[in-house]
């Protein structure tokens, strides 16, 4: 099995139409770390994940993945981008997780098929293997996506709001899987907006508001002062319609509404 790579960001800038969504971010996701990415809406959380996956070009800076191509990473995007009325069964959907081994033309091995069934059982969907995905509830659908992630067997797993719209029980069960991956030495990076959930489950947090606010042990990164700072930076974009083209200015002297 390939070792888990560390992911190092060096002065990373990602811009949409010349407006930076991620601005001068540097730091390192250690190999085998379990990191939350937190921040207000529009802070560049999803953008950062896409940049790590190589799905968005960097405007400046570098992302070093120690020679492991991001195609070997597993990535769960925010869900609405998938067509859930598509005529596939649960098993067929999960089996796409075997892509790194089967590819576009190779046969799906018996081992992968057995693994896929085990993954489906693992997320609590036994009995649904041949159900069409259109028949699933939102919670069941997320479990299918997690089963596909497990089958991908990636050393680095990126999750973008994986628990949005899920009830507490489903979240807890899927969180157990995440902890399992962490124990196996995989790196997990999850964009989450639920601060309480992060404090409870994730040891490391990257707090971002376009620029890096804090990156470290969750208790320190999510300190009141840091959260306040992130909020202040957000308020600034809301006020300056031009956004982050403005130079940084000093906030010490004035209060925010």
């Amino acid at each position, binding site marked *: 099995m390939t070792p888990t790579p560390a992911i190092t960001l060096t002065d990373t800038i990602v811009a949409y139409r010349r407006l930076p969504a991620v601005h001068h971010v540097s730091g390192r996701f250690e190999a085998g770390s379990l990191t939350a990415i937190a921040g207000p809406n529009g802070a560049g959380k999803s953008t950062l994940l896409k940049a790590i996956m190589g799905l968005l070009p960097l405007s400046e800076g570098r992302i070093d993945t120690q020679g492991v191509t991001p*195609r070997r990473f597993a990535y769960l*995007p925010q869900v609405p981008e*998938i067509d859930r009325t598509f*005529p596939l069964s649960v098993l*067929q959907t999960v089996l*796409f997780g075997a892509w790194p081994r*089967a590819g*576009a033309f190779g046969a799906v091995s018996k081992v992968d098929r057995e693994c896929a069934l085990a993954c489906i059982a693992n997320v609590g969907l*036994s009995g649904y293997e041949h159900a*069409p995905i259109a028949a699933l509830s939102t919670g069941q659908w997320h479990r299918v996506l997690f089963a596909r992630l497990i089958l991908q067997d990636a050393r680095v797993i990126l999750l973008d709001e994986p628990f949005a719209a899920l009830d507490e029980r489903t979240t807890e069960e899927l969180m157990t899987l995440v902890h399992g991956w962490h124990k196996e030495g995989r790196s997990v990076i999850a964009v989450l907006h639920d601060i309480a959930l992060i404090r409870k489950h994730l040891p490391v947090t990257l707090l971002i508001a376009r620029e890096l606010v804090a990156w470290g042990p969750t208790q320190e990164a999510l300190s009141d002062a840091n959260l306040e700072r992130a909020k202040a930076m957000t308020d600034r974009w809301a006020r300056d319609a031009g956004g982050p083209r403005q130079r940084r200015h000093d906030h010490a002297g004035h209060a925010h509404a």
Partner: protein
Amino acid sequence: MSALYDFLAAPFADFAFMRRALVACLALSLGAGPIGVFLVLRRMSLMGDAISHAVLPGVAVGYLISGLSLWAMSIGGVAAGLIVALLAGLTSRATGLKEDASLAGFYLTSLALGVLIVSAAGSSVDLLHILFGSILAVDDQGLIFVAGVATFTMLTLAAIFRPLVLECFDPVFARAVGAGGGWVHAVFLGLVVLNLVAAFQALGTLMAVGLMMLPALAARFWSEDIAGIVAVATAFAVAASVVGLLVSFHAEIASGPAIVLTAATLYVVSILAGSRSGLLARWLRRPHYHEPQEAKR
């Protein structure tokens, strides 16, 4: 018994042009049926229509250069269709304009050019021939072309099936695992163009889309599995071809519309009676999936 024979078999047994028409339509069905399914799944149902209009100037130029020559018109049509599809794709990639929007811009331009060329150089009879085709005038060369396109289409679809399904279903995942994007889409668009051009001389550019899309749309009411949908769509296209040709022969009406209207009948029947989310099935009791015990914990 002999009445049945007279109705079903005699037209094909007695007339060579009917046999040719039958073979041509069956071959078209084998290629166009599955292509239509993927157009529906990609939410590009109207794209076939756009491309079928876009091939017109190429066909017209081919006609101007060498008359009603199948090869000249086909090559021209394929070239025009590919150019329009390619320009639309490149434009949307370079500018962020939605692909259907940029395609609309280019196909309308192409269509106007085609009508201009035809009306400047030919008579209106020629335009009608190109727009509506005539299955009953398919010659041996035409048969070879149609059969060749059908064979190529099926082999290519079989080869790119998995990436094509993934591209339609979950394009972000496809890109993330590097299954992606560009070449699968390009090959598929090439197949769309090729099948529409193969169909144009038999059914006409306007009717060709009907044989492609209607069976595919109808098939979604009968299966929830992608392989099943492809099979049903192909079977419907074949059925529409046979029944449409017979109706056209006995009622002495144009073959292209007869085939497409037969497919349309299958579509309407499927909306009503389809086993999957057809209207009747919604009113009747259906079996449903039970929560298995082990999933409850």
